């Protein structure tokens, strides 16, 4: 079943759904609620930094680069009205606890100059490995 959550975007940027996390990602200034989960090993993409060209996020766990387009595709349906957002979380049981909180999100910060020095990852890191 789907669950509906109302967020105040001035106060909240993260939704905890059982063991899953979502965070408000604003790649183009438009907020999207996306999975906080690197496809490589589940690292926290909310704590990733953008590559200098802004097209990818660098996961803090293994340096895996994940395209922002791929991250955007994990977004859940959201209807905004001013700072209020109504989001629909798919496939969530009725008894799964849902918490809305505020966390530090690094993925929305502009790229740092030093990000240009990011150590290259091996090709294997590009694949999804679970």
């Amino acid at each position, binding site marked *: 079943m789907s669950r509906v959550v109302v967020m105040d975007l001035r106060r909240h940027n993260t939704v905890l759904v059982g063991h899953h996390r979502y965070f408000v990602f604003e790649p183009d200034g438009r907020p999207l609620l996306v999975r906080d989960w690197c496809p490589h*090993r589940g690292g926290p993409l909310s704590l990733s930094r953008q590559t200098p060209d802004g097209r990818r996020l660098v996961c*803090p*766990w293994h*340096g895996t680069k994940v395209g922002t387009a791929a991250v955007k595709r994990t977004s859940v349906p959201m209807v905004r009205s001013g700072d209020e957002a109504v989001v629909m979380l798919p496939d969530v049981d009725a008894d799964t606890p849902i918490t809305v909180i505020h966390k530090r999100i690094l993925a929305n910060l502009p790229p740092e100059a030093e990000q240009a020095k990011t*150590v290259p990852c091996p090709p294997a890191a590009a694949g999804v*490995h679970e």
Partner: protein
Amino acid sequence: MTITTGVDGGPIEAYCAQRVFRPGPEVYITGNPYRRPVGSTGVGDLDFSTPATEAEFLGYRQLVAGRILCNAYESDMILLPPAGLATAKEDFDLFYSDEVRGLRDTIRPGLERYAFSFLDDAVTVPPVRTLEELQAYFLGEVGGAGAPADHTGNNPAVDTGAPVSGTMRAITECRHAEEAAGMHLIQLALDALTEASAMARNLGGSYGVEQSELFKIFNDEFGYGLYPAKHSTIFKGMLASVGLRTDLHAYWNFYLTSSLVGVNYFNWLTEDHRGVFRYMAAVTYLEWLFAQGFADTGAMLRTVFGDRVDTKYCDEHAHIDIHHGRMTYENLLLGFARAHGELVIPELVRGIEDTKLLLRLGDEDFRAQIRWADTLEEHTRLGASLATSTRDDEEVRRLRPGDPFTTRVHDADRVIEVTDGEVDVHAWATDRPHRLGRGDALLVPRARLHGLTAVSATADVAVRTLEGNLT
């Protein structure tokens, strides 16, 4: 500190005399992680006051010291039997008791000096002083060890299709390749079933960005908090897939001396925090080598066991250790060098040099063990032909089924002759041990691990030292 024990007993004898450290009748020890026999009677009389030399690396005292130290280090880990504590509660209480821990703390420093001091003499530390020199040294060393960096210069290169070579190939070429491969997995199990527990000792404290980098690696080792993804869990899956027992230290009697010393080295460096820089460099070197190493191990296992082996553990390491190789190199080895400079770089280099030597000695020990265990028939023929070339130092033992079982090594080549009855020789973990009947004699080269069990109601064996050394 000098530790010697005499007939009146001392702390080592008192430690070894604890019920959990005395041999029982089992060849394989299951359902009880506290039972880990040190040796047969008399181990308390061994003198550990003079450190072992490199030439004595595989001697009996190193084996005994290795077992005691392993027990000592693991008594600060939480170990519980998977089927529940009910049948092992008394041993749990004893293993973690004040008395045993008190003895442990008394004997450990002296045994560490005995076991590891040879590294001071055997290892030459090259004059690496600067960050740039350290980078060049490390990449040169891993390249020389057959694990060069990939095109980026920062990740270990891995070729999952590479043909097996070296020790992995030697395993596949054994007549009893499954036993040899099993023996290899058993040596890995000594560490893998408590994987990253030594690393866990370095997670606490406050030491900057390197602490967080180590935690990322630990997080992988522990499967991100998911038990099915924990490396020790997938290691159990690999053991089970080839019919090996998954209980911690089920194969306690089959750990080689070099395996014990190698794993103890990492526990030692993490127990004694003066070893932190050596540890960080040693783990960097290993993580880098593991990437290709476990690709090779997986290939070996598939060659030996075919489709039935679950190599997820090897596949996981062949992948994640590309990352860990890079992460440890960039963020730990070079990270500590950047943060603390010339003050610690020689210690970092020392950790790599120690590890190189321990790996080489361990490889030689394992190769010699499988070479001997794979040819016990030939060594029985050799034993018969050499039976008249032995010294007059006969030790006679009478064995009965169910007697306390333990494995040991001798410091010289010996001939074991069965003078009455039948015995089984356990040179590796197998359901088909080598049987000796009355009149048979087996040549046991120095440092080869073995144990005997009686097959007949009684069996008499005579053990004599060979004149001169074959090995």
